[in-house]
């Protein structure tokens, strides 16, 4: 479709995008600016966006102020990666089964999964604590990985299932006629075709896992060396003052892994990998 926008429509579109971007990015910009200010200047009145005393000192000092910082960042990344791996291993076969096989209770099972998601982790935290306690998993990485995976699986199944549903049934039938078994077909035909979907699910799971670990870490883990960054940031608190500039610096550095994962995987999110499979 060829559609030329008038000048006013263009101005309207761009200002809407600008408003949206400002809304989303302003906190990051302010966080970055705070991280550049010396602690005395953070609450300066009147407010100054740029000032002469800006410095990267916080990015250097934070490592010595909180010696475990690198470990916390690693933990965050490690836990989120394990959660993602575990979740994907569960999501793919489950979603495939939901999308392809017909059995009793399939739809109610799917609804049940989504209902659990609605209840949310916060409500279930006490029963989960008891569960972790009786399994003897408290104060270990597992106590953060297992619930993390459990709560990302339902959404993942739902996303992955809708992706599988979009893969034409003829592809499997063709493979079946060619003599391939179910597993061979899944491995050689369906998964490669579903790769963009798998990447999307991986990214969303990773981001969710990275963001949600705070609750599990705070509740199930008491060991400092296993804490993720979200809990570790509290080390900057509670002395005579809060080192806001270093908190911001550490937070920004902490978001880097997510950014790196995203940059690394986003080239696989390409529409049209199924192009040429079937005529639509």
């Amino acid at each position, binding site marked *: 479709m060829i559609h030329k926008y008038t000048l006013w429509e263009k101005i309207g579109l761009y200002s809407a995008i600008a408003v949206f971007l400002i809304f989303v990015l302003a906190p990051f910009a302010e966080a970055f600016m705070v991280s550049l200010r010396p602690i005395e200047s953070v609450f300066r009145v009147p407010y100054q966006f740029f000032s002469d005393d800006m410095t990267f000192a916080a990015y250097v000092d934070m490592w010595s102020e909180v010696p475990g910082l690198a470990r916390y960042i690693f933990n965050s990344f490690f836990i989120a990666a394990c959660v993602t791996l575990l979740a994907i291993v569960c999501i793919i076969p489950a979603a495939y089964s939901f999308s392809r096989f017909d059995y009793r209770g399939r739809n109610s099972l799917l609804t049940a999964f989504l209902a659990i998601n609605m209840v949310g982790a916060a409500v279930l935290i006490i029963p989960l604590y008891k569960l972790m306690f009786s399994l003897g998993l408290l104060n270990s990485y597992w106590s953060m990985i297992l619930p993390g995976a459990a709560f990302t699986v339902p959404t993942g199944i739902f996303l992955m299932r809708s992706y599988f549903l979009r893969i034409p049934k003829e592809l499997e039938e063709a493979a*079946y006629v*060619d003599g391939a078994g179910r597993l061979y077909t899944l491995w050689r035909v369906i998964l490669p075709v579903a790769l963009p979907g798998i990447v999307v699910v991986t990214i969303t799971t990773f981001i969710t896992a990275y963001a949600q670990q705070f609750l599990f870490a705070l509740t199930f883990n008491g060991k400092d060396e296993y804490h993720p960054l979200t809990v570790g940031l509290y080390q900057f608190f509670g002395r005579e003052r809060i080192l806001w500039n270093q908190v911001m610096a550490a937070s920004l550095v902490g978001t880097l892994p997510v950014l790196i994962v995203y940059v690394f995987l986003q080239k696989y999110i390409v529409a049209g990998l199924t192009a040429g499979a079937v005529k639509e």
Partner: protein
Amino acid sequence: MGQLKLSGVTKTFGKAQVIRPTDLVIEDGDFAVFVGPSGCGKSTMLRMIAGLEEVTDGTIEIDGRVVNDLPPVKRGISMVFQSYALYPHMSVYENIAFPLRVARTPQAEVDKLVNRAADVLQLQSRLQHRPGALSGGQRQRVAIGRAIVREPSVFLFDEPLSNLDAALRAEMRVELSRLHAQLGNTMIYVTHDQIEAMTMADKIIVLRDGMIEQAGDPLTLYHQPRNRFVAGFIGNPTMNFLPVTATGVGEGGVTVRGEDGAEILIPVSAEGVRTGDTLSLGVRPDDLHPGEGEAGMPLVPDVVERLGNQTVVYANTRSGTPVCVVAGGSEDVRPGREIRARFDPADAHLFRADDTALARRVDLARLAALA
């Protein structure tokens, strides 16, 4: 080898019986075409032969072996899908090689077989491309390549050309006929396009509502349709049907009176017809010619399509029955100006009130010699 035999095959989905008890034999090396309107069960029939759909009742035999419970590969069939169903992440080479990879064929053998298939289908220069980079016709050839590389005894085609444009379809039709002549395997082909059926088939099976209406070679179906449905389905444009009344029955045929009062003697077997019966007169558009003759009717043209080599005239009789006439390319016919159309009574068909045909006197032996 590839003789296919269906005995009493039925298929029900829930309570709906989509295939009614069917018996059919397709001989080794035949090019058989299932044809019928959408929803007639032709694809279901093919999928049952392929092993993608379970048979509710009856048996399917290939080369004398009951294959009801065997997977497709063990039946010795391969199939080309309407949507091609190519693996988009694999090269053309790997697509064609897929059945061999599944069977763990040694690489040297794979190379040889894939190259041979590519030669037959003129895909040599495309082997390293992905399906996404190919045109519709090439994709269809890849799908065919994947089917022939395994050298099955029966090929199944599920409307393989319906996604191609008209020119390419005509080209692929010729290629498929050539392929059949070259390979000599049994081919079973499903289509709703009667031109594909007529041009390629050794044997056409016309289906309606899950039942075989007629099975036979194309010219038999064209000249001796068993009933009005087959007569209307085979041939393009479709046969004209005019209500007539039988006024005389004898050795020479049945004399009928049309709505304009003229009486015509149609040379058909008069079996089961009595004077006064209401019948249907069937005349193909190509058998109607503008001009006076012993049998004919006045027509008022409504729409005139000039195709260059011929003129297709959509007209109405005086009482409003639509009639189509295929006339010469430079015939002087204009909408709204009445013409007369004549036909040879020997070319006409007669159908009883229950739609069954009265047997025509056609020298089928002479026609069979043409095939």
